């Protein structure tokens, strides 16, 4: 490999690893895309770079500009990396109940953390960030949930990589957070082969988040609505914290050290495999396991870890 002169050039082009030994069906292959190998440690490096570069093209970012973003962690960390390299400042609105490593990584790259109430989950971070953005028009608000550069990063990056490495893909499975990965990769793959099915996986976050006063505090990312997410997804399935931890451990059994949301996605891939009987499932492991070591996910009693995971935001 040639010498790389800019760490940001290492974002993307992640490997697909065959983990079919974990498939519940002999005739279903499962391939996992290791997004934890991005330099900032997660799939969100892709959208962080894409959103910042688009803002630069649009002339929104003066040298030394300050950016503001709500994030449960990974987008904030990706933006912190990109901003550090490019000389911007970053303020991340982060729910209080994320793992300590997420905060530590934000500190590594010098981002300021503005804490939002943990009981309101990511919805609370979005709400607070929008309020702060309206009070500080001088800060650049990229807003991943409504920024077309988010799904475009996957449409132009993640999707073509999967098609290049595995054109035999029949099913694509990924976690639903901002919906950027599912929209971008899903639309690209369906254009290459309309038979490809797109499955979304989500945690029972609405159950764990108990600070919502009523259902109107719910949140659907604007990009999901604008890009026709409901018409694109073929299936959406919820994975419990316990199943997420179990599959995070199974991934480790075959040497894949991935985060808890990757365990959830893998559980979704296994559910997909059971349903379809034969095919090739590509699933996204959004980050590595490093940021969850403090949760004891691999080593502590599974009942204890599951209880802890119920109060933690890991998507």
């Amino acid at each position, binding site marked *: 490999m040639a010498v790389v002169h800019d760490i940001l050039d290492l974002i993307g082009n992640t490997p697909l690893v065959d983990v079919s030994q974990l498939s519940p069906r002999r005739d279903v292959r499962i391939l996992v895309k290791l997004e934890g190998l991005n330099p900032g440690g997660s799939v969100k490096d892709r959208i962080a770079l894409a959103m910042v570069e688009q803002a630069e093209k649009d002339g929104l970012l003066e040298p030394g500009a300050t950016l503001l973003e709500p994030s449960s962690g990974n987008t904030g960390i990706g933006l912190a990396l990109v901003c550090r390299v490019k000389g911007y400042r970053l303020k991340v609105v982060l729910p209080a109940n994320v793992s300590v490593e997420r905060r530590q990584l934000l500190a590594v790259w010098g981002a300021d953390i503005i804490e939002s109430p943990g009981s309101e989950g990511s*919805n609370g971070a979005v709400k607070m960030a929008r309020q702060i953005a309206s009070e500080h028009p001088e800060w650049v608000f990229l807003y991943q949930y409504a920024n077309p550069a988010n799904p475009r990063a996957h449409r132009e990056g993640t999707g073509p990589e999967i098609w290049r490495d595995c054109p035999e893909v029949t099913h694509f499975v990924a976690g639903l957070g901002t919906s950027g990965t599912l929209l971008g990769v899903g639309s690209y793959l369906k254009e290459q082969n309309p038979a490809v099915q797109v499955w979304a996986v989500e945690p029972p976050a609405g159950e764990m988040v108990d600070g919502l006063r*009523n259902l109107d505090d719910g949140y659907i990312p604007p990009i999901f609505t604008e890009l026709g997410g409901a018409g694109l997804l073929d299936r959406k399935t919820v994975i419990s914290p316990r199943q997420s931890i179990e599959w995070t451990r199974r991934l480790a059994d075959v040497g894949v050290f991935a985060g808890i949301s990757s365990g959830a996605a893998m559980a979704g891939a296994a559910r997909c495999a059971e349903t379809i009987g034969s095919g090739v499932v590509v699933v996204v492991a959004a980050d590595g396991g490093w940021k969850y070591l403090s949760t004891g996910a691999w080593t502590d009693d599974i009942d204890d870890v599951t209880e802890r995971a119920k109060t933690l935001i890991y998507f």
Partner: protein
Amino acid sequence: MPVEVRLPTVLRSAAGGNATVSTSGATIGEVLRNLVGAYPGMSGQVLTEDGSLHRFVNVYVNDDDVRYLQQLDTVVGEGDEVSILPAVAGG
């Protein structure tokens, strides 16, 4: 057919604080209409005035979101678990 419905925190006060309630129905639409009938405090929160699913509500049968099955016509059978969750962001 009797069906157990798991409620999110925000709806529990309308159901006497219960996390799970029993209702009946052969489809998700029937289950939700019976639920709102039994607990009027939920009206407007689960179904809209025109009878469709509230946009910020996700309803699952055995962990599958009914919007990607047959929506309100999704059939509910013996032993199926129905749960209601508010739409929440990640990222």
